[in-house]
């Protein structure tokens, strides 16, 4: 099936079975590697992308359901040249160990900040609770989101 997907502000023509998980289309057809496979069942958040502004598990989102929607991956959030405040904050706070979970966490954080420019720490923890981190970078990540929120608010 050939479909048109809107990813990171551009339309892409993709040929894949309609039930293909969006994650594989992003990674293998579009070469966008930020969203990562963690569990395949939406339990860990490593594959989160924004679909119409909501942080969604791309590993169990079928391709057909993403057609006609606006998809944003971490690559679309910001680039080294045009950094999103969350990306700056992650570097400033050194908020990673292995960083495998990071992309998905930043998508949850981006969805939060789009709705709430001045979250409390509890708001941030609640927003990130669908994302798992095994290395124990949680508190640094929360600080990074709070720092980015400060930057966004200003």
């Amino acid at each position, binding site marked *: 099936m050939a479909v048109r997907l809107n990813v990171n502000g551009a339309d892409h023509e993709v040929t894949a079975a309609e039930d293909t998980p969006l994650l594989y289309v992003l990674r293998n057809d579009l070469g966008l590697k930020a969203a990562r496979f963690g569990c395949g069942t939406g339990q860990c958040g490593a594959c989160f992308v924004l679909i119409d502004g909501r942080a969604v598990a791309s590993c169990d989102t079928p391709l057909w359901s993403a057609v006609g929607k606006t998809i944003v991956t971490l690559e679309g959030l910001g680039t080294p040249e045009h950094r999103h405040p969350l990306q700056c904050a992650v570097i400033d706070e050194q908020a990673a*160990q292995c960083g495998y979970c990071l992309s998905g966490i930043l998508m949850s954080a981006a969805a939060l900040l789009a709705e709430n420019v001045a979250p409390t720490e509890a708001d941030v923890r609640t927003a990130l609770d669908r994302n798992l981190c095994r290395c124990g970078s949680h508190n640094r990540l929360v600080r990074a989101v709070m720092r980015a929120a400060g930057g966004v608010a200003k």
Partner: protein
Amino acid sequence: MNLAFRLAAGGSSDAPKLPGSLHVNRRLGQWLRFLPEGLVEVRSGKVELGQGIATALAQIVADELDIASARVRMIPASTVSSPDEAVTSGSLSVQESGTALRYACAEARAIYLEVAAARLGKPADRLQVIDGEIVAVGGAHTSYWALADDALLDREATAAVAPKSAHRVVGTAMLRLDIPDKAFGRPRFVHDLELPAMLHGRVLRPPSPAAVLLSVDDSKVRALEGIVAIVRDGSFVGVIAEREEVVVKALERLSAGAAWTERETLPHSATLPDWLKTQPVETKVVDERAAASAPEAAHTLRARYSRPYLAHASIGPSCALAQWQGDALQVWCHSQGVYNLRADLAVALGLAADRIVVAHVEGAGCYGHNGADDVALDAALLARAAGGRPVRVVWTRADELAWSPFGPAMAIELEADVDAAGEVLAWRHDLWSNGHSSRPGRAATPTLLAATHLERPFERVLSINPPLAAGGGADRNAVPLYEFPARRIVNHRLLAMPLRTSALRSLGAFANVFAIESFVDELARARDEDPVAWRLRHLADSRARAVIEAAARRAGWTSWQRRDAWGHGIGFAKYKNTGAYCAVVAEIEAEREIRVRRLVAAVDVGLVINPDGVANQIEGGAIQASSWTLKEAVRFDRMRVTSSTWEDYPILKFSEVPAIEVEIVSRSDAPSVGAGEAAQGPTAGAIANAVYDALGVRVRDLPITPERIVAAAG
């Protein structure tokens, strides 16, 4: 098997002793190369696991060579060109690789200064190095880059040039080299690696440890478009396809079409500690000290502790790529030891080691011997059917949780003979556990998972313990640092292994320190003595006392306000009794579950390479240990491992993570030691002691769940 393990096992040569891994990788050119374009290529056999080692080593190199850290290129480990530093494990990378690089760079700098001196006509001791420029008084100058010549370092190291004692980059919180890639979502992990004409592979793992494959109906798999091959070799079965979503679907169909015989080979999980104590064992007295005189004990205190099997539970499943060209194999993977893996691949595949290249590419967080080596063999076996095309294999979440080696379950019995005042006269520690290492590259039989499933299977190798001189395994930190007149420490290694076990971060230290720190808390309380004061009174080592005092001070130990359902506790250990000192104070609140609200850690790692790196490792270690302590246990019935999703194997979540403060006790005159495994045992001890403080209930079997608290209270 890190280098320390190999040396302790008698692997040293007759050549003069050189520092760190330089001893077994003696050519200077193995470690570094100057490039004319103003860069230094640095090769370490230690790999980035998410712990920040590449950054720390780059800092060491920048300091020794007098160059900006931006000029350092850390080359990922590969069997083509890296020094063989065995395994990245045991919190030894700074000691083994950092020390080697420090001496290699100091000597390389001196060699280049000699050449520069001849070139400039000035004595070498009148030359200065400023970011790689070599400058003489009066202004004549050259540079490492102008003089760059590999032949200069094609010689054996002597370690005759002393490394610097003053530091410029070492000791600073230099930003991690790898974090920008990760913050911008750039390809960085082995999962992201794309090779031309790459195919996708998946392996169908057996449903239980003793399962044997009877038959596979693969007709429904073959009906899928883009299936390249279905591979079966005994009970090993896998599939290769052009597209990833197709291979995922193929695996489901393969699973549905497979028939297995299964047997009940697993213990009763409800009585795991009893099971551990009734297995055939190899018993070893780890340490024994008799008292000079033996006053009569007033009574003996006894307590039994345990921990369950623990899973690595990395967020990214194990992944590797393999490609055959004729009878030559290349593998890209996140193994902790590329040479060790190569040795096992060679045996498993019946290939000469020199026909195999193993290259390291970063994986998701690594906390010990996980599936990284196993998946490399999976990829190699599947790629044999790929007609020379590369194949990427990714494990499923279920296999990652159920088939990676587990951190072994442990049972511990402690006894203390005390006098009438409750002072310890004799201390006894008995522990029962499988070995804590079944790493590859150590023996004639490969330890890779698929090797045991082949038509002509390799025997399943019993896990062993590294020798105590290399830190020990199950017995790691079983010898208490506290001063007792007499002690006897005994390790019973199980000779049955129904579940495959191997190294998980801190090995036996997590459970041993949990038990020791819980028990000394009981001893102190039995005397009505403050647990901090008791510890300080029993430690002769001033660095040990210093971290306890620092943690207690920072946490406000003496000004603690007692509140209903809240408690605080302390835990301490010197990792491996040779590494980092760490004390942790935990503050918990007993709600429906135990919530750790605050952890305060004080750590002494000797000379600090990167203070933020140390803090990051301690924070991460304390959070992971909180998760182990409160939540984690591998679940199984008599036949199968049943914890195969994040619902069955929950880990600590953002909303459950405590506030953490880390205080680094600086000791710039002491050698650097690793920080990655220092906090685990002390954190468990501190939490357990805080739970007792809050509830008056001593939970001795991990994890400390509501059910366990109820059971312990009964």
